[in-house]
């Protein structure tokens, strides 16, 4: 069951013992001392309407008997959500040979590169079971064994409250069964870290607008098409989501489609007229499109609103002033 330990050269042991909290990004105060969330056959803070049991059907299994539980678990959820990949293809993206293991954020980063939105779940069993009930397999970080670094990734695919069972795709076991308490102990030791990989256009149950957009935004650089699909879906669900409009504008700007960027920023400004940021970006897009006059009009509005990034507005204004001076300078006229 201990499939991928993080073993390190002795000279680095000290460093890593200090850093494991860092590389594991454990939320403070939720180590193994945290109270168990399943007591006397009942789930603490059970979400309303949670089914007594649920199984996600058709989650692929990639057996691993070495250090590759990270790539194997990630491949499992990515392939399930329609990405064509294998653990072998994911190794260069997530596995760190010098640590003989995979770091948590590498799993999140590789999900983004595959065009999926990683959403780290709140550290409760209820939150994880809710995702399973909604049809999403969940990658979990567990501590297995007594060694200081016996960390392990697995994929939770089923739970059964009356039967006191969870089912995991784990190392070489396609259907590893643990009691809920066993699972919670192993999971709590790692800070109850879990995430799902969401396909753009789909929404995990109960997710709010800002949490969703915060999860989508880091995709812009590595998977712009996936980010665009996600922002467009967000706008269908939350028509006033001005941050999604800003995201579409920033994507258009990044691909140098400045007129399209300006349209999105103008929509964002209309949706959130008291915030200076959309007007600032509109000014930038207009300037990049070569229309310094319109850019000047936009930045004046941003400066008048004055918040929340006044320094950026002033820099934009200075840039526009420079473009204006160059345009009005007769020595540079065509």
């Amino acid at each position, binding site marked *: 069951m201990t499939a991928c330990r993080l073993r390190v050269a002795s*000279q680095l042991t000290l460093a890593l013992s200090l850093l494991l909290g*860092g590389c594991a*990004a454990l939320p403070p105060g939720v180590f193994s001392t945290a109270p168990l969330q399943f007591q006397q056959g009942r789930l603490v803070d059970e979400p309303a309407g949670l089914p007594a049991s649920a199984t996600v059907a058709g989650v692929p299994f990639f057996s691993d008997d070495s250090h590759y539980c990270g790539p194997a678990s990630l491949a499992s959820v990515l392939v399930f959500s329609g990405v064509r990949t294998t653990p072998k293809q994911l190794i260069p993206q997530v596995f760190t040979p010098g640590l003989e293991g995979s770091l948590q954020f590498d799993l999140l980063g590789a999900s983004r590169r595959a065009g999926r939105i990683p959403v780290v779940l709140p550290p409760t069993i209820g939150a994880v079971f809710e995702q399973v009930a909604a049809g999403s397999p969940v990658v979990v970080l567990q501590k297995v064994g007594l060694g200081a670094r016996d960390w392990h990734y697995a994929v939770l695919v089923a739970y059964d409250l009356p039967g006191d069972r969870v089912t995991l795709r784990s190392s070489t076991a396609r259907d590893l069964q643990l009691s809920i308490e066993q699972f919670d102990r192993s999971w709590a030791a790692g800070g109850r870290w879990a995430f799902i990989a969401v396909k753009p256009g789909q929404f995990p149950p109960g997710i709010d607008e800002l949490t969703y957009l915060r999860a989508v*935004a880091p995709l812009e*650089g590595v998977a712009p098409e996936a980010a665009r699909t996600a922002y467009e879906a967000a706008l269908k669900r939350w028509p006033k989501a001005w941050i999604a409009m800003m995201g579409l504008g920033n994507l258009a700007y990044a691909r140098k489609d400045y007129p399209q960027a300006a349209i999105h920023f103008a929509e964002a400004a209309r949706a959130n007229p008291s915030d200076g940021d959309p007007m*600032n*970006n509109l000014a930038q897009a207009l300037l990049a499109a070569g229309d310094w006059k319109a850019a000047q009009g936009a930045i004046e509005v941003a400066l008048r609103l004055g918040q929340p990034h006044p320094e950026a507005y002033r820099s*934009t204004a200075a840039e526009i002033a420079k473009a204006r001076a160059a345009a009005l300078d007769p020595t540079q006229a065509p």
Partner: protein
Amino acid sequence: MFTSRISRQFLVAALGVSLMAAAPAARAELIGTQQLTQPQPGQDAATLAADRSTLDHFMARADVQAKLEQMGLSQEVTQQRLAALSNAEVAQLAGRINSMPAAGALGFQEMVIILLVAILVVLAL
């Protein structure tokens, strides 16, 4: 102090990492989507630019590159992983590194090893 200077240099570098990880909105004056979704307002444009150049210098150091290679990560792989990180994730890590125990009982060599591994961990994420 020597060690605290290293910590500071490292932290600045780590913060720089977060900027490089940002979406390719290379212009500091364009407000990035990640800035808008952060719980707290981000850094201003001047800090961003300063950090970016500090990081470039740090990454160009031969000892840093050697350490990464030693851990099995090529420069190319490191850059790719870096690009897929969110600003918030790197800032979270930078915060942890900042809260590491001060030099105190540790010698200079150990401090350097810790910092280099820390950089690696940040980059490898």
